[in-house]
């Protein structure tokens, strides 16, 4: 038997069978960065700070996120709002993304749903200092990705019902939406450029 198997290379044919079968199945390789993942709502991307509907800051500067953070990348400086006695806020808020491990403990610790993670995962920059987010940058992110933030809190059961009033409360924790490959998004002109070329591009715009 062994001889026959050697002569006819049955193992090889078995292997090749798999290969040929795969040739006729649709491709599941994502052409990143030409095509991007449609990430689930519970995705833990870059951190953001959220505001209330009326534009006021949600964060009360309680520093619980700082206490919960396992990599010590959060720094909160709290104070009384000038001219408004007894109103507590974060005078300064720093988040060092280079040290963040994206565990999301901070969002769970937040008593006022001020922290939410966005779906932004492309965080690479040329200058590390840009990754030291301050309060201004975090609120900017929160404004730009408000829908993501709301969806995140809903997916992790942290919404108290005020952020997504239409959704209601439920156990959404492990419901991940399917990956949508889509048509692909146009490749940004900056992809693949050398640093010098990129800087020239930036300078031009």
């Amino acid at each position, binding site marked *: 038997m062994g001889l026959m198997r050697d002569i006819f290379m049955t193992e090889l044919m078995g292997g090749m069978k798999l290969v040929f079968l795969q040739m006729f199945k649709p491709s599941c390789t994502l052409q990143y960065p030409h095509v991007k993942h449609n990430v689930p709502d519970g995705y833990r991307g870059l951190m953001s700070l959220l505001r209330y509907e009326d534009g006021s800051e949600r964060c009360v500067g*309680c520093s619980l996120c700082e206490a919960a953070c396992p990599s010590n990348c959060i720094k909160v400086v709290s104070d009384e709002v000038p001219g408004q006695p007894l109103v507590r806020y974060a005078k300064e808020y720093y988040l060092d993304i280079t040290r963040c491990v994206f565990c999301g403990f901070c969002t769970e610790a937040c008593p*006022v749903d001020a922290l939410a993670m966005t779906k932004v995962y492309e965080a690479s920059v040329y200058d590390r200092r840009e990754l030291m987010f301050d309060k201004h940058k975090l609120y900017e992110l929160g404004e730009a990705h408000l829908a993501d933030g709301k969806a995140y809190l809903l997916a992790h059961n942290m919404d108290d019902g005020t952020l997504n009033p239409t959704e209601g409360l439920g156990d959404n924790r492990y419901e991940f939406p399917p990956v949508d490959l889509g048509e692909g998004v146009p490749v940004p002109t900056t992809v693949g450029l050398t640093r010098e070329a990129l800087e020239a591009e930036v300078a031009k715009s």
Partner: protein
Amino acid sequence: MNTATQVDTITVTINGETIEVPKGTRIIQAAQQLGVEIPTFCYHPRMLPNAACRICTVEVVKPMNKMFMACSTEMMDGMEVLTDSPRTLDDRRTNMDLLLTQHPLDCPVCDKGGECKLQDYSVKYGSSENPFETKRKDFPEDIRSTLLDFNSNRCILCGACIQVCTDIQKVDAIGFSKRGFITVVGAPMGEALDCEFCGQCMDVCPVGAITSRYSKYKFRPWQEASHQTTCTYCSCGCQYDLRSVDGEVSRVVPIEGVGPGEGSLCVKGHFGFHFMEDEERLTKPLVRRGDKLVEATWDEALTEAARGLMAAKTSGGGSALAGYVGGRLANEDIYLFSRLMRGVLESTNLDSTLRMGGINGVTAAYAATGQVGMMNSFDELRAADVTLLVGSDLTEEAPICGLAVKDTITRGEKPVLTVDSMRTEIMRLGSQRLVITPGSEVAVIKGLVKAVVDEGLIDEQVATRYPEAVAAIRDQLSGTYKEIETPTGLAKADIIEMAKAFAAGDKGVILAGPRVTGGLKGHSAFAMLIDLAFLTGNLSGNGGGVNALTVENNELGLALMGMAPELLPGGAPWSDSDARQQVADAWQCELPDFAGLPLVDQLEAMREGKIKAAYVLGTDPINALPSDMKAAASFGALDFLVVQELFLSETAKCANVVFPAQSYAEREGTFTNMEGRTQAIVKAMKAPGKARADWQIIMELSRELGGPLSYTSAEEIREDMAQLVPQFATLDETNADRAGGRQAALESYLDGAYVADMDYRYDLPAKLNEASSHEMHLYVGDSLFHSGVLSTHNWGLMKIDSVDTLVMNSREARKLKIREGDKVRLTSDQGSAVVPVKMDTRVQPGSLFFPKHALNRDVTNLAGTTISSATEGSAPLYKFVRVTLESVD
């Protein structure tokens, strides 16, 4: 510490462990000895049990089976207690549920969050579901007070704050108001709180119901770095925990049971932590170029200073130089300064703020007893049978020492006798009082000694054992009471009654304040008090004694380091050539053999051009002294002036070189408090700019001058100091053997010290009876909220008390139709000043009080300074002023 000779002990069992405890021990105390933790909100080791919070419930199995409150139940012999039995835990859970029914869920914004007992216990003993339901409280937070915010929603009504205010602080500023569900804690009648602001209510609050406005929302307990250090304001030398977040001071927290205050703090220590961060702090050395002081490098400034001081020394020798130092410097700085001036620059014109009166307490005590500093520790003050307080408003001048005296009233119900020209708080609380004409302390003291001698109140043992000494004192007291009654305004009977009350007590403690040592004949007055203690048997080691209170935090350090022309390190007089040789040997140098000039003569010598250069450290004589002492003209006449300061003071503005120094929170060192405890200060924050520690600056200047001083740390300097003055060898100890010290004091006293200047001691100064055309007595003294000029750089304390206000008697003001805030003009022989007025019953009619820290110097300048004689410490006396008051429209 009251240790009865025979204490009955009982044997008790807690959680199966048996322990022997003294009778009367409560369950919670016995459990603490065994290291068993019993939860409690309202119990406090220094207060009587309140049993309000009900969380300390424990199960007693024997002799009866019942639930008891651990904080208030005294144990019986053979008692068996279980502190974590199922029944106990069940009861505690119910109590927690009840407490949490109304407690708001605002932990994230509550300043107590992270160190809250309610949080901790609800995790440990509470349940996750609360069966009780009620409407949560919704009181608006009371933020009307300058400093303390009351959030009644968070309050669990344990009453600890009220108890500390009533029993320890004895102020009664807060209490419960309303009843039932709407009970709240606050100032009476719903008024805004306006009290001493000691902040002790905030410290004992187990939840976040009382919080500080000055630290509001600025910290989380886990973010803070903790530094145990010594307070830099008054001479009590309290220990506290200076907390900082990222190098910025967030708050001050007392440490229970540690230091002289045992965990109590006053408003200055507790809330006066802002001066270090003041923007006016000096950050770089300044050097004079023409009319202006310009910033320079350390090298430039040190070279310039060395050149200037050396030039004066070469032209006129050591006597052409003078040094003046304040009592807020650390011992290490004072020691190095003394070595620099005496050893390197060979000058003996070395004086300090001791000159303002403190020196009399030092020299009189040393002459009679051979010792320096208080005879009793604060613990002994608490245990005194009778306290005689002369010429001091303890509450304002040394609040924590005041708490020790208040403690004898609260806990022991012991008599406290007060003699003062102001109706002080302790006077109101005490049992007997003599309100005297301002400045006549010395006469009352003589009256008291006379009454003891005349009325046969002399201690029997003293009378039989030392008849010679008693006779010598008796000889001096042959006069009538008339000479005492006239200047003091007292009746003979009152003086005798007080003398009787003092002699009746077993352990009698005498406390003499700055109005005794800094008054007319301060040296003699203090010596008379020593006689009084001797006659009443309180010098013979029964636990009593005589104590001079000091003002600045390290005044005793100045005395121990010999920072006056007549003193040597250790407190010995400069004239003692053996002691001088000892110092010279230790420093390996020759000490100049001429005695230096005291401050007043120094100022004159400056104006005459005999003193050409001076070095002033940590004090501001131009600002502090009244203008008729011509300090500005004197320092202005100098060829060269070096000033070392935290701020650009008036004196610094005249300087040729200004060195920026580090504050107590930015460096290492030690302070010696009035008890004689040497305690450490630690580096808690970064110094501003290029400021350096005082000892470093002195050392580097010495190096520039070719001196031998070379140290790498403050610790190293202290080791050197300890060889010369043994008190500096150990830290945090109250000179352990006080009883032995008092025995030595008695021996030294009997060894001829008592007769030394006896003929002169009991002569009352003629100035006492001096008539004046100005009918009001103005006293310029210390205020509770401030200490020196340092605290006026504190926005926090300035917000509470802006210091520029004259205090007058309320009834008298009403009679003169003066209202609070009105302006009045004070006129003395020296000029006049216009100041706003506030009312207080503390000041008696005919008297006025003005804080000496005031930024408005006009009032201080009203004084016509008298200089007391050399035997009385050459002290400039300017605190009592005769003035005329008129209202200004």
